[in-house]
C-alpha cells in the first residue's frame, strides 16, 4: 500500500513538472512584457505554441541523420527525469535517492550533449556556432556548480536533495554567509544554463547572438515542440532547485500513514510550490529587464565570478569552523 502511495506521489510530481513548465515560461514572458509596458501574450501562450507545433508537419533537412530525429526524445527524457528527481512539493519521494545533486547536474549534461550534437548534425554554421558556445558556457558553469555542491555537502554532510532540504528547515542552519554566496552563485549558474539574459537572449532573432536558439534552428514541428518543452522544464528545474535548497518551507516530508491530513499537507505543499515558482518567475523577469545582454566573451568573467563565489563560500565555512 505504501509503495503504491509513493508511486502515486512520484507520478504526480512527474506530471506536475511537465504541466507547469510552459506556465513558467509564459509567466516570465508576461511579467517581462508588463515591465516594458506591453500587454504581452496570454499566460497559456506557451501551451498553445507547443500544441500548434505538435500538430504541424515536421520538415527534416535532406541530410538529417537518425541522431537528429532521436535527439529531441533523449533531450526531453533526460531533462524530465532530472526535473522529476528534484523535490518540488514533497521530499523523500520514492525515487529521490536514485540520483543526488551531482547526478541531476550530470543528467542535464546528457541532455546538453545530445542538443549540441543535434545542432551539428545537419552541418550548418549556425548549428556549429551554437554548439561551440554552449560547450564553452557549460564547461565554465559546471565547476561553479560543483563548488556549490561542495559548500552544501560541507554544511549538511550530504548531496541528497531531500536531506539538504530537511536540514535547511531545521534550526541548525542559522544565518550563514556561505549560503548567501552559494545562492548568488547558483542563480548565476542557472541564468547561464537556461540561456537567459545576460548570457543568452531567449527572444533573439539576430543569428550571431544566439546560442540555444542557434542549435535548434533546423528543428520544426513535433521535434521543436519537445525541445521547447524541455527548455521550459530546465528553467522549472532550476527554479525548483533554488526553491528546494533556499526556500524549503512547505515541503512535505515522507509520511508513513495516509490520511486526510497527509493529503491536505500535500495540497498545501503544492500551493507553496506554485507560489515559489511564481516568485521565481517575477524575480527572473525583473532581473532580465534590468540588465543588458553581454558579449559572448564576457561570459567567462560572469561564470568565473560564480565559481569564485562558490569557492569563497566553502572557504568561509572552513574558516568559521576552524575558529
Amino acid at each position, binding site marked *: 500500500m505504501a509503495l503504491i502511495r509513493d508511486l502515486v506521489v512520484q507520478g504526480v510530481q512527474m506530471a506536475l513538472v511537465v504541466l507547469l513548465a510552459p506556465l513558467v515560461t509564459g509567466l516570465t514572458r508576461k511579467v517581462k512584457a508588463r515591465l516594458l509596458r506591453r500587454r504581452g501574450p496570454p499566460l497559456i501562450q506557451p501551451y498553445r505554441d507547443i500544441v500548434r507545433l505538435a500538430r504541424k508537419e515536421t*520538415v527534416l533537412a535532406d541530410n538529417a541523420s537518425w541522431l537528429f530525429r532521436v535527439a529531441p526524445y533523449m533531450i526531453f*527524457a533526460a531533462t524530465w527525469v532530472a526535473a522529476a528527481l528534484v523535490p518540488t512539493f514533497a521530499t523523500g519521494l520514492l525515487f529521490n535517492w536514485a540520483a543526488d545533486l551531482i547526478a541531476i547536474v550530470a543528467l542535464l549534461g546528457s541532455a546538453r550533449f545530445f542538443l549540441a550534437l543535434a545542432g551539428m548534425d545537419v552541418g*550548418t554554421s549556425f548549428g556549429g556556432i551554437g554548439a561551440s558556445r554552449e*560547450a564553452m558556457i557549460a564547461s565554465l558553469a559546471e565547476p561553479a556548480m560543483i563548488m556549490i555542491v561542495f559548500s552544501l555537502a560541507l554544511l549538511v554532510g550530504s548531496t541528497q536533495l531531500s536531506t539538504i532540504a530537511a536540514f535547511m528547515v531545521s534550526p541548525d542552519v542559522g544565518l550563514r554567509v556561505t549560503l548567501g554566496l552559494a545562492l548568488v552563485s547558483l542563480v548565476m549558474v542557472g541564468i547561464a544554463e537556461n540561456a537567459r539574459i545576460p548570457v543568452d537572449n531567449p527572444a533573439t532573432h539576430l543569428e550571431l547572438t544566439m546560442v540555444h536558439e542557434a542549435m535548434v534552428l533546423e528543428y520544426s514541428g513535433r521535434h521543436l515542440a519537445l525541445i521547447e518543452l524541455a527548455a521550459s522544464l530546465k528553467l522549472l528545474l532550476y527554479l525548483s532547485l533554488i526553491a528546494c535548497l533556499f526556500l524549503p518551507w512547505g515541503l512535505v516530508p515522507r509520511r508513513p500513514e495516509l490520511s486526510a491530513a497527509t493529503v491536505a499537507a500535500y495540497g498545501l505543499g503544492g500551493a507553496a510550490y506554485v507560489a515559489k515558482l511564481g516568485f521565481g518567475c517575477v524575480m527572473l523577469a525583473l532581473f532580465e529587464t534590468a540588465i543588458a545582454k553581454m558579449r559572448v566573451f564576457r561570459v567567462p568573467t560572469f561564470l568565473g565570478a560564480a565559481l569564485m563565489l562558490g569557492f569563497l563560500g566553502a572557504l568561509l565555512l572552513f574558516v568559521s569552523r576552524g575558529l
Partner: protein
Amino acid sequence: MPVTILLWCVLALLVLAVAVAAVGLARRGGGASVVYGATAAIAAAACLAALAGRGADAAVVRLPLGLPWIGANFRVDALSALFLVIVNFGAAGASLYAIGYGRHETAPERIVPFYPAFIAGMNLVLLADDAFTFLISWEFMSLASWALVLAHHRVADNTRAGLVYILMASFGTFALLLAFGLLAGPDGGYAFEAMRAAHPAPAHAALVLVLVLLGAGSKAGLVPLHVWLPLAHPAAPSHVSALMSGVMTKVAVYAFVRAMFDLAGPPDWWWGLAVIALGGASALMGVLYALFQSDIKRMLAYSTIENVGFVFVGLGLSLAFAANHLDAAAVLALTAALFHALNHSLFKSLMFFGAGAVLTATGKRDIETMGGLIHRMPQTALAMLAGAVAISALPPFNGFVSEWMTFQAILLSPQMPQWALRLGVPAVGALLALAVALAAACFVRLYGVAFLGRPRSPAAAQAHEADRVSVGVMLALAVLCLLVGILPGYVIDAMAPVAQGLLGARMPRQAAVAWLTLVPFSESRSSYNGLLVFLFIAASASLAAYAIHRLASRATRRAPIWDCGFPDPSPATQYTAASFAQPIRRVFGTLLFRARETVEMPPPGDLRPARLTVRLDDVVWTTLYAPLAGGVRIAADRLNVMQFLTIRRYLSLVFAALVILLMVIAIWR
C-alpha cells in the same frame, strides 16, 4: 592454481611470437588472422584464470631464472588479479578486432610477431613478485610496444615518436630501478615479500614516491611526463593504440599502486597531496590539449592523459585518507580510482577501434577532412556515440559512475586535519569538474565534426562500413559500457578484495542494497542508481515518443537545409573542429598555451585572401624538454672530442679516473 595457468598463457604467447617470427606466418595470406585468433583465445583463457583466482590465497611460484639467489617469483593476489583481468580482457578484445582490422595492414610481418610478445610482457609485469623480474618484464613490455610504434617507420613523424618514446621509457625504467633499490635497502631484499616487511625511513620513502611517480607516471602519461604519449600511441596500428592507451597505462597505474600502497609502508599525508596535484594538472591539461587537436587518434591519446589524471587523483585521495586513518574514505577513493581505470580501458579501447574503422574507411586521421560518416558507417557511429557518452562521464554510462565516486571521495576531504588538503582538494575538485565538462565538449567536437554534418572530402563521402568482426567487437564494448554503468554494484563488490588487501577495509556490500543502488556510506548522504536512471530515461523517452505519435502530427517532409534561409551548398561553410574549439581556446589557451591569433589582411586592391593563423605553444615542451634537449646536444658536441684521442691519452684518462675514485672512497670512509 591461477599463477600456473597464467604463466602457461604467457609462455604460449611468447612461443607464438617466436614461432611467427621464425616461420614467417605473417606474410602468408590469412596468417595474421590465425595469430590474432590464437592470441585472443589465450588472452581470454588468461582473463578467466585471473577472474577465478582473485579470491584464492596468494601462493608464490618460483622459477629458477634471473638472479640465482632470488630466482623469478610470480604471484597473483587480488590487486594483480584485477589488473590481469583488465589487461587480458582488453587484449582479447583488441585481438578479435584485429582479425578484421589487420587485413588492411600493409606490412603485417612488422606487427604480428611483436603483438603477442607485448601482451605477454604486460602479463609478466603483473605477475612478477620480485623487483628483478618486475623490471625485466617492464623493459620487455616497453621494447615490444616500441617495436609496434615503429611498425610504420617510413611515415614521417613516427621515427621521432619512436625516439622520444624509447628515451622516456628508458628514463622511466631507470627511475623505477632506483626506487626498488631504495625499497630493497642495503641488504638487497629484492623480493616483494622482503620489501613489504621492511619499512623504509621517511626520507627514503619520500624519494621512493618521487622515483615511482617519475617511473610509473611517465608510462601512465602524467603531465609533465606525458610528451611521448600523444606521439607514440597514435603512431601504432589502431588495435595496438587501443592496447597502449587502454591497457598499458593501467599497467603503470598498477606499478604505482603496488609500490606506494603495498611496498612502501604507511603513507604520509603529503604524498597524497603531491599525487592529487599531479593528477589534477594531468586531467585539465590532457583534455585541453585534446580539444586543440584535429588528429582523431591524437585526441584520444590526450584524452588518455586526462583519464589517467582522474585515476591518480583518486589514488592520491586514497593515500591522504589512509595517512589520516580514515579507512572508509580511503577505500572509496581507491575503489573509485580502480573502477575508473577499468572503465577507461573499456571505452578507450572502443574509441580507438572506432578511430581505426574510420581510418580504414577514409584513409585519413584528420577530422577536418571527415563529416557525415554517420550515414556511411551507421554501426560504427552508434558504437562511437556510446563511447563518447561514456568517456564524457554522462549518466547512465560507466564513466559517470567512477567520476561520481571520485567526487563523493572529494566531498569527504574536509574530514582531514591538514589545511593544505582541506583547501587544495576542493580546488582540484573544481578542476576535475572543469575537465569533465571540457571532455564533453571535446567529444561533442570529435563526434560532431567527424560523424555528423556533411562530408568535407571525397574520401569521407565514399567511406564504407567496417567489417563485421570489428563492428561486433565495438558494439559489444558499447553494450558493456552501458551494463557496467547501470549495474556498478556488482563490479564494485568484485573489486572489494583489492581494497581489503591493501587498506584492510572494504566498501559496504553493494549488491545487497535494495534496487541495486550505489550507496558509498549511507543513503541519507549520497546514492546513485544507474539502473533506475536508465529505466527512467527509457520509460520517459518511450512515453514521449508514444504520446507524440498518437496525438501529434506524424507528417514528415524532407527538404533542403534551412540555415536561416541562406543555405550554402559548399561543405566548407560548416563549422570546423578548429572553429568549434575557438571560444575555449580564447578562454584557456592564452594562459596555458600562449595561443596567438594573427589576422593577415591584404591591403585594398590586393586580391590575396585574408589569412588567420593560430599559434599554440606547448608550454611543457618549450620550457622543460627543449632546454634539456639543447643541453644534451651541447654536451654531446663538447664530448665528441673524446672520440678521437690517442691510445696513450685514453690510458691516462682511465688511470686518472681510477685514482680519483679511490681517493673519493678513501675520503668517504
